[in-house]
């Protein structure tokens, strides 16, 4: 008799591989389609050498200088020395062309100069993608280098992103272009307002380790120093808004998406924020903490978890530093509505991604979940978010061992991954499974040349871990290990049998 679970597992392992003919045919068609799409696009817009040239800054400047020189030469011929324009001014090349052109609009260069508009197009497109990628630095760079239109666009985006970093640059521009309908000033104002608002909010909020960082920042920034601290401590807030804004922009998307955000801080045992810590959650994009120990992870409904709806609870979130396998910070986030269910016995909460929580005793659970799981906010526009998570770094367990073949020879580059991990929380159990390559790749170790591996950053309360060892040309092996109270187990060795020729491994 087969059990249903067994069948589920089998189906998960079912893989087809494209035949060579299909592979080639499709790939060719796909590449051809791309080519054609590009061509169609180019044809629609008119093939434009300038557009291509202007993609690179150097050629762009070169072309601009050429045009400017040629134009001024033309101007010189036509008008004599008075028509000269200054091409030496470093930033002025673009401006210079415009000036020359307006002065000499009857010159043959006129159609040549049209591409200037195209180059703005390109810049605007770049700016848009920078905005989409949250690239504040890039946008700030545009503020100093770009053409006027680009600057305005960048300023508007930066205002939307509430990018405090850009404040100085924006202020300068706002002074420089005082007369022009001043979007720079507007941007400055909007960012400053935001800072004020968030300052108010964050004053009431955490005081965790903000003192030492704030002094640094005070030194680093001048007028808006206090605001900066308030804002950067709420940096995830900024990102949150970016993604929310993006949603408005992308109406034509095929998938209706909402974006959930997990945000919080990682601190050490004494409460000092930890920078550059990697943070992972069952459904989220990976992230890192900033210098203030803050992180924000985006969970888009179509992320690698294959989840196409909103995030599920309970959710396992953990953080670690790559160079230290003996420390980890983690917590368990549950939906607030599920917390009050003491009456029943052995409640099971489960997500479709393999996090399962068996609750025997609610109080004990609350006592035993480390760190602060934060608070859930439901916002009808943005989707839910979990804020103010505080992950406290603590000790971790490590599994280490060696992978060899049947003869005892080491196998290098074998992967050892956690297939399932059971964590004991008082009388309750938390089972995390489906720790596969696809999206929880953090629970994977690779053997070195001598076949050794180490898997670290395991919560110390782990009770049982099932490991899976895989290597090309060998049969996959699974073993279960129990925590004997020392949290770290050495000698988790695997001996892999060679694979028979016809049994092509189904796992990648």
């Amino acid at each position: 008799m087969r059990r249903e679970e067994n069948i589920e597992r089998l189906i998960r392992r079912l893989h087809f591989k494209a035949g060579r003919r299909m592979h080639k045919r499709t790939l060719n068609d796909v590449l051809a389609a791309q080519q054609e799409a590009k061509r169609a696009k180019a044809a629609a817009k008119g093939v434009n050498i300038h557009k291509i040239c202007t993609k690179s800054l150097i050629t762009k400047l070169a072309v601009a200088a050429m045009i400017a020189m040629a134009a001024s030469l033309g101007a010189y011929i036509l008008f004599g020395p008075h028509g000269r324009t200054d091409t030496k001014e470093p930033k002025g090349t673009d401006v210079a062309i415009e000036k020359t052109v307006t002065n000499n609009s009857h010159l043959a260069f006129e159609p040549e100069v049209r591409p200037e508009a195209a180059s703005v197009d390109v810049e605007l497109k770049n700016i848009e993608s920078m905005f989409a990628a949250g690239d504040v630095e890039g946008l700030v760079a545009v503020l100093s280098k770009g053409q006027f239109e680009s600057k305005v666009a960048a300023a508007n985006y930066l205002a939307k992103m509430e990018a405090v970093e850009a404040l100085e640059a924006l202020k300068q521009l706002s002074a420089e272009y005082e007369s022009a309908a001043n979007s720079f000033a507007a941007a400055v104002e909007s960012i400053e307002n935001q800072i004020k608002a968030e300052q108010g909010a964050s004053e009431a909020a955490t005081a965790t380790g903000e003192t030492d960082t704030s002094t640094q920042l005070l030194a680093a920034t001048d007028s808006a120093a206090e605001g900066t601290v308030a804002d950067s401590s709420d940096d995830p807030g900024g990102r949150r808004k970016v993604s929310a804004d993006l949603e408005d922009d992308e109406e034509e998307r095929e998938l209706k998406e909402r974006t959930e955000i997990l945000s919080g801080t990682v601190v050490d045992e004494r409460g000092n924020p930890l920078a550059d810590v990697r943070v992972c959650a069952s459904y989220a994009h990976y992230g890192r903490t900033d210098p203030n120990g803050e992180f924000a992870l985006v969970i888009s409904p179509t992320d690698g978890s294959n989840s196409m709806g909103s995030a599920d609870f309970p959710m396992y979130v953990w953080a670690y530093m790559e160079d230290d396998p003996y420390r980890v910070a983690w917590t368990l986030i549950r939906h607030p509505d599920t917390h009050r269910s003491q009456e029943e016995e052995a409640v099971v909460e489960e997500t479709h991604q393999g996090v399962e929580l068996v609750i025997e005793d609610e109080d004990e659970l609350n006592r035993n979940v480390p760190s602060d799981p934060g608070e859930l906010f439901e916002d009808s526009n943005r989707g839910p978010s979990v804020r103010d998570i505080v992950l406290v770094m603590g000790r971790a367990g490590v599994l280490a061992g060696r992978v060899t073949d049947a003869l005892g020879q080491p196998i290098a580059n074998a992967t050892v991954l956690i297939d399932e991990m059971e964590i004991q929380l008082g009388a309750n159990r938390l089972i995390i499974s489906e720790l596969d390559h696809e999206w929880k790749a953090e629970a994977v170790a690779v053997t070195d040349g001598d076949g050794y591996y180490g898997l670290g950053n395991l919560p110390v309360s782990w009770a049982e871990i099932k490991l899976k060892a895989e290597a090309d040309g060998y049969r996959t092996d699974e073993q279960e290990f129990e925590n004997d109270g020392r949290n770290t187990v050495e000698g988790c060795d695997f001996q892999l049998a060679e694979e028979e020729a016809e049994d092509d491994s189904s796992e990648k």
Partner: protein
Amino acid sequence: MIEDELLKLRFKYGSREALRRIYEKYENYLLTLAITLLSDVTVAEDVVHDVFVSFAKSTENFRLRGRLKSYLATCVINRVRDQIRANRRRPAGLDDADLIRSDSNGPDELVMCSEELHQVNNAIARLPHRQREVIILRLKAGMKFKEIAKLQGVSLSTIQGRYRYGLSKLRSLLDGEVKK
């Protein structure tokens, strides 16, 4: 994960290599999805083909914040549904001959992994389409019951029912096969 983000960006700017990589990375996954949903290898290949071709054409208008893999999976799922609806094709059971097992260097056919999986696949092909869809979307595409319910336009409990019935039908099919 980061690779996908980069691929998306490079693809958006028309990179041929990025597109090739995306194709190679997800071809088998999507094909598996399509075959298990359709139980017709040829049609499944066409579906994957078409999905990628229209994906390739989207180059400059391409804007996607979500994950590439799920996006492509959704495209396949939708196209499979279109196929089934348009052709009113009652997906035919898989001919055993369709699934020639061979090693990965085999010239021109699909590769199945083991006898057991082969049987599973044949059993899936014998499920009524609705049950099969629920099972595949849940297990291979990782969708939630709630989402599947929305897609099929029926209630959550119906979906869960279909899933359960589907699985137990599979079980009896497989057990029957073992006895044979």
